[in-house]
């Protein structure tokens, strides 16, 4: 008896811990169906209305903010992924001076609290006289995403078998051809993972955005500002939709990765 109790304790605990993690997600999802008026606090009955008329509330302020977040996320992701991938390749593949200083410079943004990053950039924009708008948000997001891209892509570059590229060169491929036909496709999963991470970080960022956005609204900023007077259910709809899409993407990637691993295992 004692043995079986000990055996079940950990799985049951883990299940409960995961359930605990899901509670606010379930709450947010549930309240996207709430037939609420202005504030979405008490349950008023089930409706699909909010899902079909997401942009109707407050002249589409939610959707405007959501669109801004998508745009900022996309631009910052492209910039950060490009710059970060280049650094990752250089770090793994080349020798250069100031190596440890470079690593420190890449590590520090991840170890700095967001308030400090946000206030620092805002202080700089203030002293240079740059007005805060969409551009300053994109510049800020790109900055904090670069380091995360570097770590993610670096792992992939390090695991790359150099024999494959040598084979390409032996077959008289030019440097550009070897990169485009061999190196880049092999790095692509890492680059895509880094891009997804960047987008997620940018999309959900509030603290740094708040310091550098001026009058521009983003989805998290919209939620923060409306928190005082109640958030419309439409915000829950958009957040839930993003959640569902993200989960589908993650599960697809996992399943296709597992299938690929099985195929490779069969081949060898």
């Amino acid at each position, binding site marked *: 008896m004692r043995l079986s109790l000990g055996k079940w304790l950990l799985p049951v605990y*883990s299940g409960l*811990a995961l359930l605990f993690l899901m509670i606010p997600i379930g709450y947010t999802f549930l*309240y996207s169906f709430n037939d609420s008026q202005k504030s979405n*606090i008490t349950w008023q009955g089930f409706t699909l209305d909010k899902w079909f008329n997401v942009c109707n509330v407050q002249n589409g302020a939610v959707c405007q903010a959501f669109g801004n977040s998508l745009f900022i996320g996309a631009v910052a992701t492209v910039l950060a992924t490009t710059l970060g991938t280049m650094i990752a390749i250089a770090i793994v593949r080349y020798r250069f001076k100031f190596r440890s200083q470079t690593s420190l410079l890449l590590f*520090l943004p991840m170890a700095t609290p967001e308030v*400090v990053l946000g206030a620092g950039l805002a202080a700089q924009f203030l002293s240079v006289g740059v007005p805060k708008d969409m551009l300053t948000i994109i510049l800020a997001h790109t900055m904090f995403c670069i380091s995360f891209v570097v770590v993610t892509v670096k792992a992939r570059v390090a695991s790359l078998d150099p024999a494959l590229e040598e084979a390409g060169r032996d077959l008289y491929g030019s440097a550009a051809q070897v990169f485009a036909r061999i190196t880049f496709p092999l790095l692509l999963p890492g680059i895509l993972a880094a891009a997804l991470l960047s987008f997620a970080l940018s999309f959900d960022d509030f*603290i740094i955005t708040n*310091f550098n956005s001026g009058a521009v609204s983003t989805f998290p900023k919209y939620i923060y500002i409306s928190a005082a007077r109640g958030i419309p259910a439409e915000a829950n709809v958009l957040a839930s939709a993003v959640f569902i899409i993200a989960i589908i993407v993650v599960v697809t990637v996992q399943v296709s990765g597992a299938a690929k691993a099985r195929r490779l295992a069969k081949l060898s």
Partner: protein
Amino acid sequence: MAFAAFSSTTPSSTTDPIVRRRSPVALFLLLPGILYLVLFFLTPLVSLLLTSFQAPREFGDIGQFDYAFRWQNYVEVVTTYWPHIVRSFSYALTATFFALLISYPLAYFIGVKARKWPLLQSLMLVLVIAPFFISFLLRTLAWKQLFSDESFVVQSLKALSLLGPEAHVTGTAFSVIFGLTYNFIPFMTLPLYTTLERLDVRYLEAGSDLYASPFHVFRKVTIPLSMPGIVAGTLLTFIPAAGDYINASRDFLGGTGTQMMGNVIEANFLVLQNFPAAAALSIILMTVILVIVSIYVKRSGTEELL
């Protein structure tokens, strides 16, 4: 999502197959990104430092300051905001402790026990990262609503007399620490998982073969072997938690008596336009964190993590 930063830090065991070369290509690859970080990360820190010593302009408006060396700014913010400074670090420390306590068994189950069932393992991992996919602010607000005075949870606690009739849950130190703990559990669980997943169970078997009790094996074998994960997880929780101001904000889980450094930095910068005070507080926050982190990393013997 910062876990990626730490989960891949362990050097890959494959010996570096490439003879690293010096080449102008390296410069071309590095320069744009490094310049970007110098321009938008390092220079802002310098700006922040300069701002923290600024003095109000004579006969100037609110928000007008001149470069100076007014070190009294630091004395003023420490005397005015010392409760916030203490609160930031004590809340963050408490939340880190609870997050570790909650996450370790979970990570152990996913990383060690669930190895036999890869599908379950990946499903559980998806659930651990699931909170990242829904707005951090909405999740925190969900807790606020679940803990509001009219909520089922609070009403039942009151009915059971576990909570006084006039007591509140939101706006207290408890709810802020609760929120911080909840929000950082995934940041704690993922690095723990990545080290535990590689834990060689034969070491544990060897321990019990040598007549060590399960508790002893855990303390002497499992914990030391998972130290890199513990260090990474606690740092990933402590650093952002100390600077967080969402959970402690009055519109979320906090109240007037729970404001942290982040809240006063935000208020001074964006509302009061007292930029030097906000900058001085930021510099204090960053310095204390860097000192704590470097001592912690040295003492736990995991320097290679950085």
